[in-house]
């Protein structure tokens, strides 16, 4: 049984079509990410699943039941909001208990479940605090506890890590994934951060211009992007088209090679000149102008310390394995149509 099934989903705001026909099935217990740039429609899809927006056309099914026209309080989903949306006039404990109280769960059970939920996000002794007296990361966890305590079939997360600093974000990514594995419910996670989507998800849907342009596992989306847009948005990519492609690959088409798959090679390979050397701690990025007429990015690990900038201006040869060349299917991109 699918946890979520979207069919022909559309949403227009005035003359703007935010979601332009989305079909999607999300399996029970899956960690599913919706990835895309801002304005690509991913958040609107999430809001239609939650019931905050009514679709212009199409249907939303939750666990096989058509909920397209139902109000949020009639759906067995809970949401973690981007701004957390904690009630400032209630304590943390009261915030977490809110959903149970509304559903008339007896006081004793309410208390126990809220304490459990707070313990599961490692906030055991914070029940009496007000949200305002907590840090961003703590509030985020309260929001998570407040949603999870209701034991929904599906948890919707709208860029929940967006407001956290990098360190905390990486920590929360691991925690979220662990919590999801523990509770075993379906997570639908909206993000514009491709690292986040790749790290956490079982499957990823890449959004562009109100449509899904590719659905697949992180490996599939990264190693075999279905379009130049996906190749460019998920990770950095060197995309070759036209004459350059013909010169490098001996045939017409659109090809892509990831920066970390390209190596400097003394003798063989495509000749070029290093235009820029960018040291980034763990790795160094080289920008190389190929003689064939393309600018490519090469990433190398700094296994032996900083390489210095000595390569700048040097002539080099670049090589890669054939199996790392991604041939991108020729297809009209929705984003190009505008």
């Amino acid at each position, binding site marked *: 049984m699918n946890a979520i099934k979207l069919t022909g989903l559309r949403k227009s705001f005035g003359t703007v079509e935010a979601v332009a026909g989305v079909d999607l099935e999300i399996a029970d217990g899956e960690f599913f990410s919706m990835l895309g740039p801002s304005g690509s429609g991913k958040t609107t899809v999430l809001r239609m699943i939650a019931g905050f927006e009514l679709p212009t056309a199409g249907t939303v099914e939750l666990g096989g039941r058509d909920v397209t026209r139902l109000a*949020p*309080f009639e759906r067995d989903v809970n949401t973690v*909001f981007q*701004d957390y949306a904690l009630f400032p006039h209630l304590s943390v404990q009261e915030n977490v208990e*809110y959903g149970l109280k509304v559903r008339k769960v007896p006081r004793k059970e309410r208390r126990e479940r809220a304490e459990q939920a707070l313990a599961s996000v490692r906030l055991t002794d914070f029940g009496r605090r007000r949200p305002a007296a907590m840090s961003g990361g703590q509030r985020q966890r309260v929001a998570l506890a407040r949603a999870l305590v209701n034991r929904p079939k599906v948890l919707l997360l709208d860029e929940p890590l967006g407001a956290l600093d990098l360190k905390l974000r990486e920590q929360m990514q691991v925690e979220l994934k662990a919590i999801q594995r523990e509770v075993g419910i379906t997570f639908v996670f909206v993000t514009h951060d491709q690292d986040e989507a790749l790290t956490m998800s079982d499957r990823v849907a890449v959004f562009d211009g109100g449509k899904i342009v590719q659905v697949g596992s992180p490996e599939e989306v990264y190693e075999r992007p279905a379009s130049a847009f996906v190749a460019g948005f998920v990770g950095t990519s060197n995309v070759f088209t036209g004459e350059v492609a013909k010169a490098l690959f001996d045939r017409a088409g659109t090809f892509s090679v990831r920066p970390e798959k390209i190596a400097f090679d003394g003798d063989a390979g495509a000749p070029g000149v290093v235009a820029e050397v960018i040291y980034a701690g763990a790795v160094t990025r080289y920008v190389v102008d190929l003689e064939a007429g393309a600018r490519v990015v090469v990433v190398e690990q700094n296994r032996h310390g900083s390489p210095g900038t000595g390569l700048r201006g040097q002539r080099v040869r670049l090589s890669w394995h054939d199996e790392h060349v991604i041939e991108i299917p020729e297809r009209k991109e929705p984003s190009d149509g505008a």
Partner: protein
Amino acid sequence: MSFLHRHPRLRLAALLSAPLLWLVVAYLGALAVLLVSAFWTVNGFTGEMVRTFSLANFRTILTEQVYRNVTLRSLGVAASVTVICVLLAVPMAFFMAKVARPRSRHWLVIAILTPLWASYLVKAYAWRVLLANGGPIESVFGATPGYGLFATILVLSYLWLPYMILPIYAGLERLPDSLLEASGDLGARAGRTFRSVVLPMLIPSVFAGSIFTFSLSLGDYITVQIVGGKSQLIGNLVYANIGAANNLPFAAAIATVPVLIMVIYLVAVRRSGALEEL
């Protein structure tokens, strides 16, 4: 310029001397004179002010039944006006802040403000015409409440409503939509969300608005003269003692009653955070 720059205290003094003078002389000075003269008396024969300390005025106010009645009546009117304004303003402000489109919001705010441009007197007289025997209200509804306390409460509610709507509107505008969505998401219907989320967060704004409606009603004496029939409020007593009775000290003593009530009220609502909403 550089002289003032090097002397920040002087600069501050130049900035603040005029408003401080105004505040001290015009505001606090007048209040002080009011308080002091409340303890004076008037010679019954000559009508001259006797500038010696006496509690006679306050003794009269506290002991004579009529003053207690008028005070209670004024309190009742102010409280009723405030309650009516809250009941009307909350749904109106909610519509303006959360339902109406952003573009029509500006027009709605202007529409709320425009009645404040018209003269208070004209609006009160307009109601006198409306409420008159044989006036528009009687000819449409078949009956009119006529002049009296009810009419006073009605007209005061009409006059002060904008002062209640605006702070509540401002409070609602600051209330993020995501809180309402979160409540619905957690299973609450609209009514529950309103009771459990919107209302508790609006309390400071409601109190802020009530400070206006309550104090303005408590001090009013014109509306009650125009549509109040025979009823009298504290303001009328003050006015009568200034004019006809020519007893300024007693007028001052009566005037301290609403001041005192407002101080008590402000202290009471201070804890709700209403004063930060003003």
